[in-house]
């Protein structure tokens, strides 16, 4: 069974959001990394790029497939996780630790329809 972490917000496209000091950290879930298999490349946006909820902001490539990253939030990228450039496999080994982008949220940048851990676990169980 895929793991979920309490205290995060989840999207139906298997990204998570963790709020830290008013910023949103965004990553992909354990379910996503498991479905993708070994991840070999992460295509990340640049700092200062705008991201919009439900829109693509990058991509992950695994040995099986390439998949778009869909932003769960709206705002401005303030930082990308540089460790992923050389070690994309961190998304496999530590999906909830390895964030991809840090976002300064726009007003109402955190949509109300994101799921909590329990709802997301239910969602995955029914896939």
């Amino acid at each position: 069974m895929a793991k979920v972490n309490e205290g995060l917000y989840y999207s139906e496209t298997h990204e998570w959001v963790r709020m830290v000091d008013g910023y949103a950290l965004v990553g992909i879930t354990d379910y996503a990394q498991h479905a993708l298999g070994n991840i070999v490349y992460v295509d990340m946006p640049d700092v200062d790029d705008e991201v919009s909820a439900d829109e693509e902001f990058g991509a992950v490539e695994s040995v099986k497939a390439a998949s778009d990253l869909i932003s769960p939030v709206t705002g401005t990228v303030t930082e990308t996780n540089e460790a992923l450039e050389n070690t994309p496999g961190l998304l496999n080994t530590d999906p909830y630790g390895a964030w991809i982008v840090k976002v300064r949220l726009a007003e109402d940048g955190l949509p109300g329809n994101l799921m909590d851990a329990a709802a997301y676990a239910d969602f995955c169980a029914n896939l």
Partner: protein
Amino acid sequence: MKNYDKLIFELSVEGRTGFSLPDNRWEHRLPEIPEVLCRRSESGLPQVSEPDVVRHYTNLSSMNFGVDTGFYPLGSCTMKYNPKINEETASLPGFTSVHPLQPEETMQGTLQVCHELEKALCAVTGMAAFTLCPFAGAHGELTGLMIMRQYHMSRNDMKRTKVIVPDSAHGTNPASAAVCGLRVVQVRSTPDGTIDVEDLKPLLDDTVAGIMMTNPNTLGLFETEISRIADLVHGCGGLLYYDGANMNPLLGKVRPGDMGFDIMHLNLHKTFSTPHGGGGPGSGPVGVSAALWDYLPYPKVTADGDGKYHLMSGSHTAGRVSGFMGNFSVMVKALTYIMMLGNKNIRMAGPLAALNANYVKESLKDCYRLPIDRVCKHEFVFDGLADTSSGITALEIAKRLLDYGFHAPTIYFPLLFHQAIMIEPTETESKDTLDAFIEAMRNIAREAVSEPDILHDAPHGTPVRRSDETLAATRPVLRYRQVE
């Protein structure tokens, strides 16, 4: 020879040779060759004897797996047997010694082969004309989309930049559209595995250049709504593109032209039995309806009333897509295949391909999960093992099959299922071969429960064991170790 991994350069011994050249009678002319064109160092060719060379390449060839060594059920690739007579005709000196820049009147036979093949392809597909220039399937897709774009542009209909592609499509479809400068929009499949017409409707407007479909689709299912889809897409001014990768089960039964497709490609190296998978090259002729004839790339062969053949170009041509006429020897092989089967037997190829696929599917569906349980055409898709308790993946099943002497099926495609195993047996396999494959697949399902470690570590008997795909993608070794 299991672990043979030498380069021919490693066999080289100073002074060893396997040939003798005649005396150079032009030595005195050498000073006339411009200095800049003269080599200053040794050529660096390996110095080996004839037995060294023969053993080297024979050993290397034994490490390969092909349709000549065993069953190759690679889904969507139509790895049918390649009859040897194809090689014989393609090797005829009249075909091998022509030069593409020869005057037309000196290569009438060559042009006749192109013309006869085009006529045959038109007959089996229901299209009005074909270009034989594209070198492979994806090149055919790009050529077809260039024709589609050229058609809209020549009518001054510049808004049409959107190409609709189903979520079950071959990955080359969206890639070709993107390379052609068009925008890709995805349309969903229904739970039955075919295009969701209700999801398609809202996408249809005056920005649609066309839709790319393969029928049967990558799940091996016939798109039964095709005539409705054709009406809807034509109704909004778009064109229908047929990806011919899955043409095999339709051969002699149904024609894309009759289904309403405007443009299509064929893979001669799939449907028409020419070698591929390391043994190519390929060939991806593109066919069009009568209305699009003028947009075909050039050069194109035509026949005049006197039985003479010429190369020409349409006035709205999408341009040139190859240096000359494409991979000509592949065309000779495909025409040989068509003529050897003849009008009657070619109609058996499709139904027998579908029969073989259904036989394998029905024989294995108790051990492997069959997400869409319908009569299939040339191929079908399992979603991993029926009993998932072992956690054994599609990758491990595929690797273990190599130990049983079979090529692995296509895995992790289409993307609609997590553990996709896509199997296409083709019509050229006997029931004995299919039964042996079924037995191996059943054994693997049993091993998954009783001895899962065998699968974790498979393959055990191949020259190269399990490769580290992550390392191969992240830290590829692009050169062999330094040879002194």
